């Protein structure tokens, strides 16, 4: 297996850690989620093209469909948070108090 996979896997781990470690904006975490989807797409496409898995070529497109669904849902939640609190700061989400 080639060394390209190490870099793409490292990119996935970096954006996963960026998703888990909050700073101030919720939008940055949604961008890290999109980054995870992009790295998964590239890894899947490279594996399918290297090993000539012909019928599996439709799976990156299906991944992109579900990533679009999840991105739209996350954005709608962010819009509702921004409508309620004025900004999308993560420190505003403190109703649970634990």
């Amino acid at each position, binding site marked *: *297996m*080639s*060394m*390209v*996979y*190490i*870099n*793409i896997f*490292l*990119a996935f781990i*970096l*954006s996963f*850690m*960026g998703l888990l*470690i909050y*700073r101030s*904006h919720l*939008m*940055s975490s*949604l*961008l*890290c989620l*999109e*980054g995870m989807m*992009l*790295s998964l*797409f*590239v890894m899947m*496409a*490279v594996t*399918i*093209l*290297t*090993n*000539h*898995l*012909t*019928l*599996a*070529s*439709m799976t*990156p*497109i299906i991944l*992109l*469909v*579900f990533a*679009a*669904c999840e*991105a*739209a*849902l996350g*954005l*709608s*939640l*962010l*819009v*509702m948070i*921004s409508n309620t609190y004025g*900004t*999308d700061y993560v420190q505003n989400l403190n109703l649970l108090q634990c």
Partner: protein
Amino acid sequence: MMTYIVFILSVVFVVSFVGFSSKPSPIYGGLVLIISGAVGCGIVLSFGGSFLGLMVFLIYLGGMLVVFGYTTAMATEQYPEVWASNKAVLGAFIVGLLSELLTACYILKGDDVEVEVVLKFNGAGDWVIYDTGDSGFFSEEAMGIAALYSYGTWLVIVTGWSLFIGVLVIMEVTRGN
């Protein structure tokens, strides 16, 4: 150098991922995500997947990131912070950059470098894909994607229905009370 072009593209991919994972203001993160999408498309194109690379540009960059761009412009209005204006962002960026450069230098240093995490990775076959014989005059990847409508009819039904339900859920969420 051209034999290492895929590796260089993947290094630029990781560096741009560090750029938005260190979380500057979202508008700059979106800009760097566009760059990483373009470089990821280049990686997919280097392995011969022209339709999948076009999908990245059209659907991912042209569809999803445009929506992210104007939602960011709408929902966050303040003074956006760059990578250099905050020590946490700059520190995270430099740490990520250094770790990627160390990895890249280690990989490019020797010819027989072998890394074993769960599988054995070696850089020898970086630009060669496995050859299984003659595939004729058609592109395998395009034929596989075209099989979405013959072998993958149920996949089309499930994804179409889930997109429809997603639209209804988003309409209910944004309706609020």
